[in-house]
C-alpha cells in the first residue's frame, strides 16, 4: 500500500498589499479544503473523486477565482472553464465557456465519464449539462461586488488585471499594467498578460 498525498491552490500572483484579514480568510479556506480531502482519503475515496470534491468546495466559496467569485470578461460577464484528469489510464475531461453551470469541475468529470469526448465548450457544454441534469444558476450568481470593482480598475488601467483581491482602500493598478515592459509575448506587450 502506498501513502496518500494532497495539495491545493487558490491562484498565483498575489497582491503584496493584501490585507491581513484577506490572507487569513484564504489560509482558512485552504486548510478547510485540505482537511476535506484528507478525510476523504482516509475513507479510501479514489484520487479522482477527492480532487473533484475539493475543487467543488473551492468553486462554491467566492474567495478565489473560480465558480462563484470568478474573474469577469471585458463585458462584465463570467465564462468559466475546468479540467480533470485521472492518472490511471490517463482519462480526462474539460469544459470552457460555461456561464450557468454551478460547479464546472463536475461537468468536466461528466465529459470524462459520460461522453466519447475529452473537451466540450460554450453552448455544446451547456447543452450537455442540461442533458445530464447538472445544477445550473443564473450568471449573476457568479458575479461579486469585489470583482465588479476589479474589472473597473482593469478597464481604467486598460489591462488584464492580476487576479487578486484588491484591498478596498488602495486603488493602484497592478505593477505589470502600469510599467510598460519592453518584453513582448505573442506580439503583445507582456503587461497585457498579467498573471491572474
Amino acid at each position: 500500500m502506498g501513502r496518500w498525498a494532497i495539495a491545493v491552490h487558490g491562484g498565483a500572483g498575489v497582491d503584496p498589499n493584501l490585507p491581513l484579514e484577506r490572507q487569513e480568510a484564504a489560509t482558512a479556506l485552504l486548510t478547510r479544503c485540505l482537511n476535506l480531502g484528507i478525510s476523504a482519503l482516509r475513507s479510501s475515496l479514489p484520487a479522482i473523486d477527492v480532487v473533484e470534491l475539493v475543487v467543488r468546495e473551492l468553486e462554491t466559496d467566492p474567495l478565489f477565482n473560480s465558480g462563484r467569485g470568478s474573474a469577469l470578461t471585458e463585458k462584465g460577464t463570467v465564462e468559466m472553464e475546468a479540467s480533470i484528469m485521472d492518472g490511471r489510464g490517463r482519462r480526462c475531461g474539460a469544459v470552457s465557456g460555461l456561464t450557468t453551470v454551478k460547479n464546472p469541475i463536475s461537468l468536466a468529470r461528466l465529459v470524462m465519464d459520460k461522453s466519447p469526448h475529452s473537451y466540450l465548450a460554450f453552448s455544446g457544454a451547456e447543452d450537455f449539462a442540461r442533458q445530464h441534469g447538472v445544477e445550473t444558476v443564473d450568471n449573476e450568481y457568479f458575479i461579486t461586488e469585489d470583482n465588479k470593482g476589479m474589472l473597473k480598475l482593469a478597464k481604467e488601467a486598460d489591462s488584464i488585471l492580476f487576479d487578486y483581491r484588491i484591498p478596498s482602500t488602495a486603488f493602484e493598478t497592478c505593477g505589470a499594467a502600469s510599467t510598460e515592459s519592453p518584453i513582448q509575448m505573442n506580439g503583445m506587450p507582456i503587461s497585457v498578460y498579467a498573471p491572474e
Partner: protein
Amino acid sequence: TVGCVVADTEGRCAAATSTGGLMNKKVGRIGDSPLIGAGTYAGEVCGVSCTGEGEAIIRGTLARDVAAVMEYKGLKLQEAVDFVIKERLDEGKAGLIAVSSEGEVAYGFNCNGMFRGCATEDGFMEVGIWE
C-alpha cells in the same frame, strides 16, 4: 484559478483545475486550465495543476513537462517542479502544485505569491501564501 492534486493509497494520481480566467479577458478566451497537458495533467507518476499567466503555461505545456522530466530525465518530483518553473516559462509568471504516486507533494512559483496548501500521510501539513 483553483486546483487540487491527489495521490491515493493505491498509488493513483489525479488532478483538477477550475477558473474564471483573467479579469477583463476577451469573451471566448480559453486559458490553460482546461487544456490537458498545459494547466492540468495526471499520469502514472504524478498529478499537476497550474495557475498564473495562461498564455505562458500553454506555450510551455507546463503540467505535462513535470511528468515528462520525471519519466525521461529521472528527476524526483520537487526537482521536476523546480526545473519546469525555471526553464519552461520564458518571462511568464506562474505557479503549480504536484503530487507523485509515491506520496510526495511539491509546489513551485516564480511570482510574488501563491495560495497553496499541502499534506502527506506521515503528518506533514503546510498552508501558505508567500515565499
